[in-house]
């Protein structure tokens, strides 16, 4: 075991896989000498050489499109897009080809490709550096979409993502990158894709969240406990496939649910979870499941971001409202 930030844990996962499988290559903007603008790939080029860990030209469509070419011809690329806001030049390659090649070729060409990038707000950034576009990827059939919330999960999920023969969108909550540390095994281990984690059991209400919002929810849960409310917290981990079983079980038990996420609330993961709660636990519902999410606005720059971002007291406010409903 060793104390790791999420940055370190992902770096460690990449290191383990690079070491064990020669078909893995890593590239993207500034991932080589620089080790990535967040240092997630630090030291890997030095260790594995420029053929396996390298800087690409500045073109996201190119990064993803060439990675698809590699993935159908014997390699297992893990590419970095520098920020969530710069995934969109690659959106056509992702939606039109990466997600579809397996189906289009009727299984002849699987696409073992991981597209990883930092996402989310709370770091006082410029525009395009604070967004949470998970719903856009989750709506695209053929992809898996994964979001870890802790160093441990990041490592186990990343190794699973790399070992998956299907393309995985791996979104890393940049706010968490260095904000928490955890003892993480240095050995290889995997966590299943598509399975949520019950972070904490409770009986009065289910809170579903993921990524950086898990910590905010935990703070709100402390407030709730003081108010005598027992909260069950679920960390979704996988956005697609979504773990409707775990969510359904929990809501059947508690009868209440709120979803906490940074993204714009309309047409979001929150919407999907409310649909799931209805489908799986309708007859147990004691209050309307609700979204505690970002507004349908551009995420503001630093001075305005505090209004946009979900605070623990706003989560508590919604928990209380639901329980008192």
């Amino acid at each position, binding site marked *: 075991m060793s104390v790791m930030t999420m940055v370190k844990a992902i770096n460690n996962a990449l290191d383990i896989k690079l070491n064990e499988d020669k078909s893995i290559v890593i590239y993207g903007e500034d991932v080589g000498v620089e080790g990535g603008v967040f240092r997630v790939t630090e030291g890997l080029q030095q260790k594995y050489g420029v053929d396996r860990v390298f800087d690409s030209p500045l073109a996201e469509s*190119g990064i993803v499109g*060439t990675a698809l*070419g*590699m993935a159908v011809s014997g390699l297992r690329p893990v590419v970095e897009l520098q920020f969530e806001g710069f995934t969109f030049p690659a959106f056509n*390659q992702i939606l039109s*080809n990466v997600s579809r090649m397996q189906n289009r*070729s009727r299984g002849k060409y699987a696409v073992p490709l991981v597209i990883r990038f930092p996402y989310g707000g709370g770091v006082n950034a410029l525009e395009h550096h604070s967004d949470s576009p998970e719903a856009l990827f989750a709506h695209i059939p*053929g992809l*898996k979409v994964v979001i870890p919330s802790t160093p441990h999960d990041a490592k186990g999920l990343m190794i699973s993502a790399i070992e998956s023969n299907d393309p995985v969108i791996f979104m890393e909550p940049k706010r968490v990158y260095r904000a928490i540390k955890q003892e993480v095994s240095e050995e290889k281990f995997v966590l299943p894709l598509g399975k949520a984690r019950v972070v904490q059991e409770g009986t009065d209400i289910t809170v579903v969240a993921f990524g950086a919002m898990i910590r905010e929810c935990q703070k709100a849960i402390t407030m709730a406990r003081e108010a005598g409310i027992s909260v069950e917290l679920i960390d979704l981990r996988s956005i*697609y496939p979504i773990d409707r079983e775990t969510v359904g079980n929990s809501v059947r038990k508690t009868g209440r649910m709120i979803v906490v996420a940074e993204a714009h609330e309309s047409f979001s993961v929150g919407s999907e979870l409310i649909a799931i709660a209805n489908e799986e636990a309708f007859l147990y519902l004691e209050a309307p499941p609700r979204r505690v999410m970002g507004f349908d606005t551009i995420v503001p720059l630093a001075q305005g971001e505090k209004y946009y971002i979900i605070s623990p007291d706003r989560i508590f406010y919604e928990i209380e409202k639901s329980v008192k409903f």
Partner: protein
Amino acid sequence: MIQNDLPAIFRDFNPIEDKMLQVIDNEGNVVNEKLMPVLDDETVIEAYKQMLYERIADEMAVSYQRQGRMYTYTPNIGQEAIHIAAGMNIREEDWLVPAFREMGTLLAKGVTMKEMFLFYLGNEHGGSFKNVRHVLPIAISIGTQFHHATGIGYSVKYQKKDEVVYTFIGDGGTSEGDFSEGLNFAGVWQVPVVFTIQNNQYAISVPVKLQTNSINLAVKSVAFGIPGIKVDGNDFFAMYLAYKTASEYARAGKGAVLIEAFTYRRGAHTTSDDPSKYRGKDEETRWGLTDPLIRLQRYMQSKGIWNIDEEKLIEEYKSEIDAQFVEAENNKSYPWEDIFGHMYTDMPDELKRQKMEYEQFLSWKENRR
């Protein structure tokens, strides 16, 4: 930067000077003797036969569509020299990353007309090209294939394999960002990829001059530091030479090459298009004189190697192709489960649930009867 030891044709037909590589003229006369590729007569005859086969297959596909027996089809008429010249250079282990208008090259890789028909009859199994080696499905989202080819080129190089990647795009496709990005990556990575622009003068109804202001399309290679050459795409020998030179260059580890094949889309864009809306008959007639089959035929006749009973051959091809079409047409099996079965290498629970719910609906429907 491009290396200095470029093969002579890239220097002699520098696209900056808007030159075009040509070996035979419209009458089939050799206009550039020293560039004539060394091919034995059988090979030349074989090339013609393959071009003819593609032509016939195309015409039949169009007529099946007209008969209402097949959905919208994309004919290749006029572009056969490119496809067969590429097909005769591409080896089993080489990769083909098609756009959507190079049927002859697909056939050379071993794809059958039955598969093509199945695809245009609306069955994915036809378009998967599952039975041939190293062929990607056709790329409908224009331009995206350039990156795939470059990525495969990287794989080949990384794995030190003796493989070359062939990919295609249309003149219209050169406007897409992925065209430029793909060539740029290929230039930096020096990958063994032969890029072909089939400049057939139109993107549906839009003529090349509305597509770009560059003097020709081969010259775009300059922007990405790879050698480029403009070739008479209706001249089988010129195309053959270009592919031979380019693939040798690529296999020698020198990097990628861009070929502009200057040709003409003699047919409609697809069976649902009507070219008379946007171009004149005289233009079509003028280009008709450059038809690659006629030119090669004339060459063979003047060389005295034309020994083909074409009528008979056409009949042979027709019945063989028709048999394939009928087979494809009779393939009525499309199990509903199939639409769920290929999305992932292991089916996620969400899809299993959707499949199960659909099955419940199907049995409700069954019971209602």
